[in-house]
């Protein structure tokens, strides 16, 4: 067809449509031709076969859609023995426990400074039983529920029958509740979730157990009423919190200090992420998050108290982080005293 210059202004719709259609078919044809050339060249130059693979390989990578297996046809949960090498200390660590290891290894965990201080103290003291206690602390820490250290450590000290950590095989999976329906049973989960209990149950529980709520896991301490990790003050406050102002410790004495677990604190602690350097706003200070009229610090979600370093071993302070000044608690004699 001949080419001619024409102005589009005088044309009616049907003519314009016809032209548009013509252009469209030309474009489609040209595109098809391009594809033909690609194939032609590939065949002629001998690399057309590259696209293919043998049927066995195709089968290898086919998606499997059967119950009980994943898309690779593998049974679930066979990956218990994976290991990796820590980039920091070059030790070989079980993969599923790499995170808690790394936290200690990098010295950034909640407990790291406490453990470090204790190690320093024990190496000064050269006291064998101290170092045993130190191992015990890691293990008896009821805020972490990792399983036993696979490394051979001498654990001469008594296994506290009240420790939730008795059974080592049950793994705490990502914070899922351990599936333990009976709240009174000692289990390897990190304590008891007070939210699921009614007032009567709580009352009864609190007559036999320490009950102080961990800041981190939000679970109640399942040790005895004289558990050394928490103070009487804390035990008193948790009873007040859970059971009302009239509650008191079974062997109560002393002042009623409403301290301990304070809900409001947790949100005040987690301030906005601090990004270094810039004068202009970073997208990480997303205005969208600030935009809502919700006055609370809404960005804090499941994050527990961050990295604040703790003074080692002062009784009562070790398992909680408080920004407001705490009036000094009368120290109860405990195994931590030597540290100070």
């Amino acid at each position, binding site marked *: 067809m001949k*080419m001619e210059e024409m102005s589009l202004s005088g044309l009616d719709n049907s003519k314009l449509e016809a032209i548009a259609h013509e252009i469209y078919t030309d474009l489609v044809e*040209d595109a098809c031709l391009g594809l033909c*050339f690609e194939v032609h060249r590939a065949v*002629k130059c*001998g*690399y057309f076969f*590259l696209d*293919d*693979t043998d049927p066995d390989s*195709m089968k290898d990578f*086919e*998606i499997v*859609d059967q119950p009980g297996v*994943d*898309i*690779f046809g*593998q049974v*679930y949960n066979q*990956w218990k023995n*994976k290991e990796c090498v820590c*980039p920091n200390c070059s030790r070989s660590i079980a*993969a599923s*426990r*790499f*995170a808690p290891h*790394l*936290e200690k290894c*990098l010295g*950034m965990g909640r407990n790291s400074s406490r453990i470090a201080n204790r190690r320093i103290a024990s190496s000064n003291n050269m006291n064998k039983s101290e170092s045993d206690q130190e191992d015990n602390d890691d293990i008896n820490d009821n805020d972490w529920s990792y399983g036993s250290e696979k490394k051979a450590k001498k654990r001469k000290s008594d296994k506290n029958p009240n420790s939730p950590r008795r059974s080592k095989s049950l793994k705490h*999976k*990502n*914070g899922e509740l351990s599936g333990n329906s009976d709240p009174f049973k000692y289990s390897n989960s990190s304590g008891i979730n007070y*939210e699921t209990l009614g007032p009567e149950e709580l009352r009864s529980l609190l007559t036999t157990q320490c009950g102080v709520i961990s800041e981190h896991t*939000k679970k109640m301490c399942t040790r005895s009423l004289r558990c050394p990790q928490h103070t009487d003050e804390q035990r008193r406050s948790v009873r007040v919190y859970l059971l009302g102002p009239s509650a008191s410790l079974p062997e109560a004495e002393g002042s009623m200090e409403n301290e301990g677990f304070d809900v409001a604190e*947790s*949100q005040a602690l987690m301030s906005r*992420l*601090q990004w270094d*350097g*810039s004068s*202009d*706003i*970073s*997208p*990480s200070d*997303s*205005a*969208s998050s600030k935009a*809502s*009229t*919700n*006055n*609370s610090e*809404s*960005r*804090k*979600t*499941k*994050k527990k108290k961050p*990295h604040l370093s703790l003074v080692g071993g002062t009784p009562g302070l070790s398992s909680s982080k408080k920004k407001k000044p705490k009036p000094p608690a009368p120290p109860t004699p405990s195994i931590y005293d030597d540290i100070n």
Partner: protein
Amino acid sequence: RIDEGGSDMSPPAAGCCHVTGFKVENWKQNLRAIYQCFVWSGSAETRKRKAKSCICHMCGAHLNRLHSCLYCVFFGCFTKKHIHEHAKTKRHNLAIDLLYGGIYCFMCQDYIYDKDMEQIAKEEQRKAWKLQAFTPTVVSHYQCTMTGIGEKYSTWEPTKRELELLRHNPKRRKITTNCTIGLRGLINLGNTCFMNCIVQALTHTPLLRDFFLSDRHKCEMQSPSSCLVCEMSTLFQEFYSGHRSPHIPYRLLHLVWTHARHLAGYEQQDAHEFLIAALDVLHRHCKGDDNGKKANNPNHCNCIIDQIFTGGLQSDVTCQVCHGVSTTIDPFWDISLDLPGSSTPFWPLSPGSDGSVVNGESHVSGTTTLTDCLRRFTRPEHLGSSAKIKCSGCHSYQESTKQLTMKKLPIVACFHLKRFEHSAKLRRKITTYVSFPLELDMTPFMASSKESRMNGQYQQPTDSLNNDNKYSLFAVVNHQGTLESGHYTSFIRQHKDQWFKCDDAIITKASIKDVLDSEGYLLFYHKQFLEYE
């Protein structure tokens, strides 16, 4: 048909002996001239000239696969065999296709690929591309390519030696629609399910995947082993390796904790927080990739993270007295949306009461939709007498209304449903079901659509021809459990309509229904159509 000899490092060519007659004297220059004038048009003038002068000398057609004789000035169409006639009568055996630049040999009766001639063709094409002004590219649904500026994308071609090797090693990893390549489980390192979900979402972000698989990251960190972007690149290699055993992302964890210390700690964390921190570290480590364009604002460079994830949120504060508007635009990587059931007041109208069907969501009465949340997010808000703003028009403190709209949408939009409530009295998880669509049109929430929303009414019909603001869901991160302890899983999309559930090391097939019925915590949407800026 004739395999040309030549070195093993050269690309395979298939020329013929009949070109020797052509390769005399100034043949290279002549050939270049032909390419420049009649094949690859680099500028508007050459385009015009080509359109005007390239017509068949016999029938006047300008299409029909026009060819130019290589020996003389003659254009003839292929379809009507006019160029064939010319070749026969004049004994000019070579012609060039003006559309794609292929050389046709009339003796061989086939297109031939001569090494030297192809070299010239490639060079001229590259030159022409560089001259060309940008043209918008409409890309097919869910497949995206991003080319560099002025650079024609050329596919990899094996050398002769490589071809030989490949011929002897026929096993390949070929990615088809029913293929596991690109999917891989992730070992939980101890409460790291939040990280695993974000990794799954990022590795299934098409643009990010393309960026890393085409090796676009050039590391400029002092020590590449501490570069998170390099680690991301490795991660993509792992996902496309064809390995079936789950990957152990311990190096990733180590790097993230090293570079974002506020995140470090073994306790359970929030996936959303991790996403923002990871994007920030990646963005900081991307310094080498911004194509030499250093923006003045250190927070908005041109790195791949900014190109994909950064949007602009416009905040308009209107003084109630003088009606002057003060506008600010802030960058964002995510949109956090309040939900009904939180202690903040939700949408004054009941959801879906205006009866409109938006974004294909049917309004089962009472079900909150993502669109409802977005509407609430972009509604004008009266700031109240306790929050007076200093108005520069009135020179005094006045009451005002504030409204947020999207100024610029990112290519990947991440919506964060605020399910974790922390108010003075309450810490809880909001488990209200929020229905979200597979396809989302963001047009009503754009700054440009604002006027029609001034009175809080949604009225604008969706323009089906305008594809700028259409998004497709490609990843969903879900949280099961309570505020204190729970587990994150994710759904990701592969090959357009296949969905998979990622539960740490376990990857299983999922249905679209599974995805859309899930609670939803982080929702990742990808722009359907991409354009150059």
